[in-house]
């Protein structure tokens, strides 16, 4: 990145592109500090009232808690399932591994709305609608294909010969996995965790089918809020979400290196 000086025109072009892409997002920040009771730009006055309002909005806070807990549980579970699955598919060369991978990642290609409808039908019969367990299972269905994709790619890129070297030095298959394979997969594992968390946290379509009066996630609560009210409360939430996303990305960058994790 920093080896060659970038021409000025290119810099300006890049700047304009970023402004274009990020303008709607950036616009949210001033609106969240608005003193008005509805969303306008520019606001007629400034205040922190919508942040204060948010602190006292038990429905939003509850939804935030549900979404966070849901995303954490889904991330942990998807890792526990996808890591051994990726290992079995790539390293143990189980019979029909290619077909299995294609099958497991097929939901990536399905329109989410179709998937949501299918889940709704199945869950209605199983009594999982409006339950936390139902949300966990539904989110796992969405997140697992992503997790499996990233982890299989990461594992397939590792030289097998390094693991073989460890085994000739006396390491059992389990030791090889924990001491050699996993550490070498770390960028892929961090990327998978970040991706799983964000996909689950951000999921709205399927959650819309499954949530009800008793339980709701943050994206669904926000959607329902703007349907009935036009106040800047959702702008305040959006700013918090942007901060959260940036925090996740920065943690990934610190621990594994962003370009290494997502580009390679």
């Amino acid at each position, binding site marked *: 990145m920093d080896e060659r000086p970038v021409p000025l025109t290119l810099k300006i072009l890049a700047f304009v592109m970023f402004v274009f892409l990020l303008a709607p997002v950036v616009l949210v920040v001033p609106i969240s500090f608005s003193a008005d009771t509805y969303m306008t730009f520019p606001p007629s006055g400034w205040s922190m009232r919508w942040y204060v309002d948010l602190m006292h909005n038990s429905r939003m806070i509850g939804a935030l808690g549900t979404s966070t807990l849901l995303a954490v549980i889904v991330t942990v579970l998807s890792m526990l399932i996808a890591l051994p699955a990726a290992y079995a598919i790539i390293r143990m060369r189980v019979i029909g591994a290619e077909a299995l991978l294609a099958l497991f990642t097929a939901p990536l290609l399905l329109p989410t709305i179709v998937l949501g409808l299918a889940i709704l039908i199945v869950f209605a019969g199983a009594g999982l609608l409006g339950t936390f367990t139902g949300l966990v299972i539904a989110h796992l269905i969405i997140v697992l294909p992503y997790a499996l994709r990233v982890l299989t790619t990461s594992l397939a890129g590792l*030289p097998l010969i390094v693991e*073989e070297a*460890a*085994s000739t*030095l*006396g*390491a*059992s298959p389990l030791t090889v996995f924990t001491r050699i394979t996993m550490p*070498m997969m770390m960028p892929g594992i961090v990327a998978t965790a970040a991706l799983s968390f964000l996909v689950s946290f951000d999921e709205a379509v399927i959650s819309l089918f499954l949530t009800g009066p008793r339980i709701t996630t943050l994206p669904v609560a926000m959607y329902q809020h703007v349907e009935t009210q036009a106040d800047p409360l959702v702008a305040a939430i959006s700013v918090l979400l942007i901060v959260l996303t940036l925090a996740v990305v920065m943690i990934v960058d610190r621990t594994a290196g962003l370009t290494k994790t997502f580009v390679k």
Partner: protein
Amino acid sequence: MQPGFLSIRSLTKRYETMVAVDDLNLEIAKGELVAFLGPSGCGKSTSLRMIAGLAPATSGTISIGGKDVTQLAPYRRDIGLVFQSYALFPHMSVLKNVMFGLEMRKVPAAEAERRAREAIAMVQLEGREDRRPAQLSGGQQQRVALARALVIQPSILLFDEPLSNLDAKLRDEMRSEIRSIQKRLGITSIFVTHDQVEALSMCDKVAVLNGGRLEQLGTPNDLYERPATAFVASFVGRTNRLSGVAEGDCISVGGKALRAPGASKGKVELMVRPHRMVMTAAGETMPDFGSEPINSIDGEIRDVYYAGDILHYEIDAGGQVMSVERTTSGGETPVSPGSAVNLTWRVADTLVFGAAQ
């Protein structure tokens, strides 16, 4: 055959479409350094991987020190392996890499570190214990790999073309270093290479492989002077070939009668090392072979190459191209292309093989 320390019997590896190793039989004595030599794809790596347990054998047995290890997982075999691509652990320091095998053997940490540091010193990498592999040159990485394999004092040490990724000068250095360490520690070793100079100069014995089969196992001198097959004769060192028809020990080559020790009947190939042929041009005196029986043919010089210490002649002898060398002594004029010459060599230096293998 007397059972060796490493004993390989009828070892075979079959992949769906081909046989990579075909009925390999080999006995290697304790402390010996044996080369597996052969062209690329002849099954050297596959043999080595079966010995290490990384590839299951289709059939046959491998035993080490009298114990059958054919079905044993690699981590129970006590074998050191050094790969062409080093295969170091990228996330561990040099010291941790070398300590890994000792840790797996439950050697107490303090002793493991002491022994690892000794091994690192043995491959001349003191002071680099805390580096990551990526911070080392190729040659240094291969030294780490060597130390990592040596430190566990394995019963057998296997090398799979460990010097192929290094430049020529470093390769020479590492060759003699590996040889002296191997001798000093007396570790039974197999050294896979496709480079005959490496095999002949480093190893006690050389196993020549071709198409998955063992062509010959012998000392470097055996292979060069008494090759068992035409393949060995042409793969190890350089040869001139002549095709002819044998009748007893008399062989007719393009109408000219030559002799070879122990020739059989039918179509044969004769091979003679270039530097064992003596070229005589018109006006030069014939060399004196004493009472030794000799062969001699006539030819015409096609080309001359000057290579500093030698002059290299290409000679057309009745349609078959021979190459002959003369050492230079300074001041002579090379015999010019087109000149008629005579080639002479001892019957004892004539190798004969059945043709069309």
